[in-house]
């Protein structure tokens, strides 16, 4: 992990048969499952939700551990403050709602009572990005990473699949301090190897490429891998890095990637302003300036439609990653 891996390892990881045997699972479902298991093992874990427990999947925990579940009603600001108070009595609160409401509605509360007060609150938001789909722009958080990343003391994590989500939840329960975990509504393919274990601040390297490296997080990791396969057939060596911790960024791995290829493409289901692309650019501009192309929403809101249609509309696809890279390599 975190280092360029051998070609042998790479072929093993891009082997389709492995991923195809596992059905796509939504990261929110993995969260619900992880919470249930934690509830059993950890009496200090408490869960809060704001009238969306069926959607965020905290409902399983709510049913099994009703004394440790607090439905706060449609009151996100109060939910965050209450979570901070619970943390201050030694509990490990997981507070969940949709990403728009979690980070937007309650930003000042997160800033003051979670980050500035450095309380041990885990903010796990679901329904991030445009794959929310038909509900449209009001429900599609495309700025949440930027909002959370700007806050001192905050760790920001975007898991790529169900297995990584479970590993993240089981890890952050023991990490002191504020954490934001960004999950999605839609089912996503399983991309991480069976033996993978999440380490905060450590990117997972599928392969470091010589021509370009794609830095992805969340649902774009799968797209990045597909893009790399297509490019490899055309003789372009494209690497793929799963930058699941966006803050603190794995600077070492990013530097290795930039040094190896001299071209970086970021891909995220978020605005290119302030998200993964922004974080990567900030680091590289100061430390190892190389050309960067950022794939993501281009300073726009989302809209209604099916997740696949919306991803295509915003160019968040393997095909667009391929096109962007070919275009950039021409220059």
């Amino acid at each position, binding site marked *: 992990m975190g280092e360029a891996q051998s070609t042998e390892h790479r072929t093993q990881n891009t082997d389709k048969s492995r991923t195809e045997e596992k059905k796509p699972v939504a990261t929110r479902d993995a969260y619900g499952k992880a919470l249930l298991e934690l509830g059993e093992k950890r009496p200090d874990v408490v869960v809060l939700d704001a009238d969306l427990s069926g959607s965020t999947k905290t409902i399983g925990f709510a049913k099994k551990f009703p004394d440790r579940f607090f439905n*706060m009603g449609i009151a996100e600001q109060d939910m965050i403050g209450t979570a901070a*108070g619970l943390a201050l009595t030694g*509990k490990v609160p997981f507070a969940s709602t949709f990403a728009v409401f979690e980070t937007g509605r309650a930003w000042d509360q997160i800033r003051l009572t979670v980050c500035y007060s450095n309380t041990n609150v885990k903010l796990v938001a679901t329904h991030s990005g445009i794959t929310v789909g038909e509900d449209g722009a009001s429900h599609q958080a495309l700025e949440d990473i930027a909002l959370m990343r700007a806050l001192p003391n905050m760790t920001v994590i975007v898991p790529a699949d169900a297995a990584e989500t479970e590993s993240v939840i089981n890890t952050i329960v023991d990490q002191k301090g504020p954490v934001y975990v960004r999950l999605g509504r839609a089912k996503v393919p399983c991309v991480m190897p069976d033996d993978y274990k999440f380490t905060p601040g450590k990117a997972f390297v599928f392969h470091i490429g010589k021509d370009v490296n794609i830095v992805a997080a969340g649902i774009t990791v799968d797209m990045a891998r597909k893009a790399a396969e297509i490019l490899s057939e055309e003789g372009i060596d494209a690497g793929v890095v799963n930058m699941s911790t966006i803050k603190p960024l794995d600077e070492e791995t990013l530097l290795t990637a930039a040094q190896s290829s001299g071209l970086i493409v970021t891909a995220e289901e978020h605005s290119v302003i302030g998200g993964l692309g922004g974080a990567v650019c900030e680091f590289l501009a100061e430390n190892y300036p190389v050309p960067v192309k950022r794939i993501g929403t281009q300073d726009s809101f989302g809209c209604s439609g099916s997740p696949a249609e919306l991803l295509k509309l915003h160019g968040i696809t393997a095909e667009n990653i391929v096109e962007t890279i070919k275009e950039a390599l021409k220059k």
Partner: protein
Amino acid sequence: MTVMTKGKITDVQELKNVAKKIRINILHMLTQAGSGHTGGSLSAADVAVAIYFSKMSFNPDNPKWENRDRFILSKGHAAPLLYAIMAEAGYFPMETINNLRKVESPLQGHPCCKHIPGIEVSTGSLGQGLSVANGMALGLRLDNNPAKVYCIMGDGETQEGQIWEAAMTSAHYKIDNLCAVVDNNELQIDGPVEEVMGIQPIHDKWEAFGWHVISIDGHDMEEILKALDEAESVKGKPTVIIANTTKGKGVSFFEDKVEYHGVAPSQEEFDKAVKEIRNG
């Protein structure tokens, strides 16, 4: 269990004397700092002194003692009040109060829990303390910890929507190990609360939200103590004390003056004020 306070004060006259000392130290801090919130620090002084010195169990040598009672100053701009009390209680050396609002001082303009163990949570952005108090009260209840939680809000502060979200939560979860106080001095920054954005009838509002409401003269130490006892005895619902107070209380030329919300005394005003408080 070891005794974890210096000994609670039950004598009314003694509490009044402590309150005088706290008022003088508030004004000293503000004068030294040259800025800060005078009116709201003085209006809440009697209630805060009563809570800290007659009701709460705590241990300044072990600020994280798990059975301590908790105090949250939701109206964080009254930080000088909290600092004067904590210095008096022994959380930090008295000299520290000379450094209010100075660079790298633990006495930040608004309370910061990172700098002073014993401050439970950082405040300053109004409207948030009651939610945190609820969370603490729920956490204590889960642990069967008998500790209590106190939270002081401003009356203007209750214009914040989050206060009413939290008010619903306290009642919904029948949080009775919590006592909230509204420092009802009827002033905020831009003028009288009723002119800026009326909050009346507050007694009825809190009652309608499912609270046990006690309205008192927030400068009458005997009434304050009685109300705090009553709050402790009420079970199955949260209690709020509406403390009817005077902004700037104790210094005639600050009293009921909206302009002394966020202005520190001059040296001359300080000297005059101290005389008034001593003689009062």
